[in-house]
């Protein structure tokens, strides 16, 4: 690949992910169809079959799914410069919009009407989190081990002031050991 062609690819990646970052609401999973359309169907930067692999990797590595898939696709397409361009592209729209909002929010928060609006919004937003908990619950594995981890994690995080990071590390370890033991017993999880 010539330098010129490579620069063109990097710039293209930046623009594609700028668009993805600027036009998806709700983040994460909402972005996947758009990423698939823009990178696989329209521009053939990655194969369509690769998208499900990319999602699986984005899910099993830490950090937001949008960042993970942008970095991954950027790297596969144009190396490290490509990954920087794609990640910067996906971050930039949110960053600019929130910066503007942060500037104005403090100034309008004193108006009673705005306070009332946020009073309503806070109650409404809980519903969105209820929905997110339900959809994560549906996607989790359903068996005794999983249920125990869910309940214990809830109790740990909601009613103790023990570190959440320690909890996450312990649950990862527990899952690893559980799968190892089950496999020795001749079953695959």
């Amino acid at each position, binding site marked *: 690949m010539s330098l010129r062609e490579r620069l063109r690819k990097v710039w293209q990646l930046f623009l594609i992910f700028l668009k993805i*970052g*600027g036009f998806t*609401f709700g*983040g*994460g999973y909402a*972005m996947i169809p758009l990423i698939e359309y823009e990178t696989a169907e329209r521009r053939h930067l990655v194969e369509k079959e690769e998208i499900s*692999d990319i999602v*699986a*990797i*984005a*899910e*099993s*590595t*830490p950090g*937001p*799914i949008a*960042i*993970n898939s942008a*970095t*991954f696709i950027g790297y596969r397409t144009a190396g490290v410069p490509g990954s920087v361009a794609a*990640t910067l592209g996906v*971050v930039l*729209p*949110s*960053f600019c919009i*929130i*910066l503007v909002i*942060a500037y104005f*929010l403090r100034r309008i928060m004193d108006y*009673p009407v705005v*306070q*009332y*609006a*946020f*009073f309503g*919004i*806070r*109650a*409404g937003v*809980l*519903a969105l989190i*209820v929905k*997110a908990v339900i959809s*994560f*619950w549906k*996607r989790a*594995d359903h068996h005794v*081990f*999983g249920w125990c*981890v*869910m309940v*214990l*994690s809830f109790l740990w*995080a*909601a009613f103790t002031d023990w570190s*959440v*990071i320690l909890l*996450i590390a312990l649950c*990862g370890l527990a*899952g690893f050991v559980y799968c190892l033991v089950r496999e020795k017993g001749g079953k695959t999880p």
Partner: protein
Amino acid sequence: MIYLELLFTFFTIGLFTFGGGYAMLPLIQEKVLSHGWMEMEELTNFVAISESTPGPFAINIATYVGAETAGPLGSVCATLGVVLPSFIIILIVARFYIRFKSSKAVSGVMFGLRATVVGLMASALWGMLGTVFFRSIPLAWSFLLHPEFLCSAVIFIAAVIAALKKVNPIIIIVCSAAAGIVCGLVFL
């Protein structure tokens, strides 16, 4: 120094967030609330703002907390912090992702993490329920008749029904805001 503290705190948050979005709320509650950078009520407000603006929640909250505590440079540090762990780890994984994909260790760890994320999100919800419904109301049976509680409860139940019927989150937020204004002007 505040900039390094923001960078480091959000680096930790990025490093230990799996599943994206609200799975990171308990960690944010622990880290950001304990630093005094934000209050629970502000965090709940911000979830709504993040839902109504494009982009991932992680980036939105990092930018906002950074800007609120240390201005534009603060938001650069916090956003960089939350992005860096993903970026570095993906660059490593992308080199040998076939092996990563079929790794039994990774699938085992993920097996445990998928379960803990559900419990973590439920606990974030639990904390927010407390601040939304019992914010300024003494805990006695009479709170059930308090107008603030009743308004919140009605908006919450209506929004849950709408969310389960897959109504667009932005419409839910706009309607909740309108309902909040009406309740505020009439009852509070």
